C-alpha cells in the first residue's frame, strides 16, 4: 500500500479562532486543495498534504489566504494551529515512530488498533476502502458541474 505520511495532532484538530496574519497553520486533513478563490468549488492552485505548513497572509471569514508550497486560499477546517508530530498511515511501516509519536498515536482508535483489528479479522479485505479513499472529485470539474446544473 502506498505509504503516506500521517500527522497526529494534539487536540481535536478542530479549527480554532482565526490565526494571526504571519502565523503558520498546518494541514490536518490527508490532503486539501489550495483554492484560487475563497470557496470550495472552483479552480485550485495545488494540493497540500497532511503536515504541510502554510503562512497566513490574510483572513477572510472562514478562509485564509496562505503562502507555502502553493499560494491561495484554504478553509479553516483543513488546518490546525496545534502541535503536530509525524507517524505512518495504516498499512504503513508503523515501526519507526518515536516515543512522542507513539504517545499521540496511543489515544483512542488509531493505526495501531486498526492493525490489531485486521490481524484478528483476516477475512476482512481493507483494500477496498484503501482504493475508495484514494479517489477524489476535482474541484474545477465540480465547478463545471455546478454551473451546468444551475447549482450554488
Amino acid at each position, binding site marked *: 500500500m502506498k505509504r503516506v505520511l500521517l500527522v*497526529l*495532532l494534539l*487536540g*481535536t*484538530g*478542530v479549527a480554532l479562532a482565526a490565526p494571526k496574519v504571519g502565523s503558520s497553520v498546518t494541514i*490536518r*486533513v*490527508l*490532503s486539501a486543495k489550495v483554492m484560487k478563490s475563497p470557496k*470550495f*468549488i472552483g479552480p485550485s492552485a495545488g494540493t497540500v498534504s*497532511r503536515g504541510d505548513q502554510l503562512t497566513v497572509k490574510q483572513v477572510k471569514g*472562514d478562509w485564509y489566504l496562505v503562502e507555502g508550497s502553493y499560494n491561495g486560499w484554504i*478553509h479553516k*477546517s*483543513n488546518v490546525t494551529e496545534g502541535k503536530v508530530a509525524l507517524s505512518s498511515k*495504516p498499512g504503513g511501516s508503523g515501526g519507526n515512530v518515536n*516515543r512522542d509519536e*507513539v*504517545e499521540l498515536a*496511543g*489515544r*483512542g*482508535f*488509531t*493505526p*495501531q*488498533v*486498526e492493525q*490489531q*483489528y485486521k490481524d*484478528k479479522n483476516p*477475512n*476482512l*479485505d*481493507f483494500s*477496498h*476502502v484503501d*482504493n*475508495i*479513499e*484514494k*479517489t*477524489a*472529485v476535482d474541484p474545477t*470539474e*465540480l465547478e463545471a*458541474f*455546478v454551473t*451546468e*446544473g*444551475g*447549482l*450554488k
Partner: protein
Amino acid sequence: MRRLGLAPMMLASLLAMSCKVQLTPESISKGWHAYQDAKKDLSPENEYYVGRSVTTNLLSRANYKYIEADAFKNGELGKTTAYVNAVGNVLAAAAMGDPRKDDRPSPIAGWHFVIVDDDQINAFAASGGFIIVNKGLIKAAQTEDELAAVLAHEVAHTVRGHAIGSIKKARMAGVYKEMLDSTVQLDEQQLGTLTQAFEGAMDDMIDSMTVKGYSRDTEFEADRVGLKIMVDAGYDPQAFISLLKQVDKKMGHAGTGGMKSTHPSPKDRIAKLEAELAKYDHVKVPKARTERFKSAIAQLEGGDAGKELE
C-alpha cells in the same frame, strides 16, 4: 454531535479501577487533562479509523459487490459513481456553510460515496466521510434533486456525528480508561483492550445502522439538516418529499428489513418535513440537470447486475 461526556465522578471511578495509576497529584492532573481531551469526543482521526473499518464491514456484508469497482482499483471513479460523488461533494461543500460547533463537515480523508449492488432500499453513513448507498435507493430517485435528498440525509448523519453517537457510553468509558493509562506506549494488554473497544464500537454503529436504527428524532434531524443542505446547494426542497413518496411506494411492495426497519415511515418523515418546507422557495430545475441524471443513472436500470458490475 451529542457529547459522550463523562462526569468527573466517572473519571475518579476509572482511576480507581485502574491498578496501574497511582493517585498522586501529578497523576490526577495528568488524568484530568487526558479526560478533558477524551471527552471532546473522538478526534477526527479516531472517527476516520472507525469509519474505515465500518465501511469495510458493510462492504464485506455485500460480498464487496459495488458498482464500478474496477475503476476504484485504478484510483478512478466510474461514470455513475463519479456522478453520485459530484452530487455528494456539492452537498458536502454546502454543509460547510453554517456548521454548528460540534459538527463534522470536513472529514480528514474527504467525502466518498459508494454504490453497493443491493436492491434493498437503504444507505449508510459510516463516520469519517464514507457513505454507502444501495443501488435500490439510487434507483428509487427519479431526478438529480431526489438523489440529492438521499445523499443530503446521509451527509447530515455524518455532519451531526450520528454513527459515532451510537457507540455505547459504557464502551467509551473503557476507551478513556486506556487513554488515561497509555502515557507513553500501549502494552499488549492495553492494545487488546482498545481493540476490543474498537470492535464493540463498530458493532454498536453497524447495529444502529442496519438493525435497530437510530432514534426517530435522530432520523428527523438528519432529514431537517439534509433539507437545509440541499437547499443551500441549490436543489429543490420539494424533491425530498417526492423521494420519500417514491420510497414509500417501493417499500410497500418489499418485505421487512432495510430502511423499513431502521427508519420512521416515509409518511411520518413527510409530515415532519412539510413544516420545514415553508421556510424554502421552490426551485426550478434546469433541463441539463435532468438530462445528466438520466445519462448517469441509466446504466443502473434494467436490473442486470452482471452488466452493471465491472
